[in-house]
């Protein structure tokens, strides 16, 4: 097993600031916009972006929810390991809001497909955008692309992209793991 660093801590921070600025450019005061972190790994990125937008750019009351997609996945009873659910926490209405899905890695696009179905249980958003820290090119199974990306990566199927966060893994970094 070998590790290759794709982004170190400084590079992660630069990417986060850029993504926050891009969000602000398009959503201004976030009055009609909500951020949705996709469980389980998208919530760290979502929390960081909310923090940056509120503290560095002094925009108040950015709404953030967590969406769990386990029960909406299309690989129930197809994957080898059982699917473990996580908490969904959306304590606001998404009806007529602009929704930004936030996840750490975009790979096949199937998680986002599930999230598109899942979010409908909470109302009909006026539009939905997608933000990912890492966009793995050439690996999509579905016609889904990010609106905001931290870094585009070419990786073959046997390789895995691992995003680490200080609050969960002890450091901010992105690795390419070869098995």
């Amino acid at each position, binding site marked *: 097993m070998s590790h290759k660093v794709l982004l170190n801590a400084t590079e992660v921070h630069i990417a986060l600031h850029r993504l926050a600025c891009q969000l602000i450019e398009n959503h201004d005061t976030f009055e009609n916009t909500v951020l949705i972190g996709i469980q389980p790994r998208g919530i760290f990125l979502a929390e960081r972006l909310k923090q940056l937008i509120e503290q560095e750019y002094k925009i108040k009351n950015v709404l953030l929810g967590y969406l*769990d997609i*386990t*029960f*909406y996945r299309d690989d*129930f*009873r*197809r994957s080898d390991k*059982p*699917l*473990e*659910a*996580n*908490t*969904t926490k959306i304590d606001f209405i998404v009806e007529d809001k602009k929704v930004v899905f936030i996840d750490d890695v975009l790979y096949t696009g199937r998680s986002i497909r599930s999230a598109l*179905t899942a979010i*409908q*249980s*909470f*109302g009909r958003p006026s539009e939905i955008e997608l933000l990912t820290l890492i966009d793995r090119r050439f690996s999509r199974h579905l016609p889904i692309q990010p609106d905001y990306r931290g870094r585009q990566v070419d990786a073959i199927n046997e390789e895995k992209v691992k995003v680490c966060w200080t609050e969960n893994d002890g450091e901010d970094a992105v690795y390419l793991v070869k098995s």
Partner: protein
Amino acid sequence: MSELSVNHLLGIKYITERDIQLIFETADHFKEVINRPIKKVPSLRDITIANLFFENSTRTRLSFELAEKRLSADVINFSAASSSVKKGETLIDTVNNILSMKVDMVVMRHPNPGAGVFLSKHIDASIVNAGDGAHEHPTQALLDCYSIREKLGDVAGKNVVIVGDILHSRVALSNIFALQKLGADVKVCGPRTLIPKHIEKLGVSVETNLMKALEWCDVANMLRVQNERMDISYFPTTREYTQQFGLNKAKLESLDKEIVVMHPGPINRGVEITSDVADSGQAIILDQVQNGVAIRMAVLYLLASKIERDEG
């Protein structure tokens, strides 16, 4: 994590504490789902479930059916009153006929104890016991313990008394197993005639004085007086039963603490429990019903995830 150790839910006796905790954790997520504006998830869209009720039931059948529909499963219902069982068909024949229509799971209530276990040895589908005679009613016990956990934070270390007709009650037996696996202390209370001999061997204590039992407990689970199962006179009159073992406001208020009151339903108001208690804030009877749907969704979801997928 995160798989059940069994392929069928035949009784609490056959599952582990870890299984129960996994069902509770999964039910937490489904409880959130059924409180959304749109209460449905597509998880079981390729699963067909047959509800086979060889004995009458309203609430359990509705609860299972709702749980199945919330999970997007296809559902067929069967009740013995209008079926070929009346014409003398055997249980295995009846079920095999239904399974040949490509059914993946069976939810069954049957008057004979062990019917689920028997069936599981002869057919392929995953089986959920929805009550077999006076034996077990596992989903009821799970939702009872889940409701205690929700109300009191944890089941471990709590004192729970089950009051009433222990002899004919599948709810009592499943509850005893479930509560003990989760670390609660269990007492049964009722007329001697309605308490099975040797029940102490299950590790429960017996109390025939309701007031003493209430003073000891954190939770009182009041069972229904099952008049339809009373083939002989187990107590002189209903009035005498109510005086000795019925729960009323005066008895509750004479305690120096507030206990939680449960009832598996349907209630005989004025017999085992008075209306003012059943409708009070101490009673969690309607929470039990709501939790029943979430628990049954969790059980069906976890069992379905163990079914081999038909690639043909």
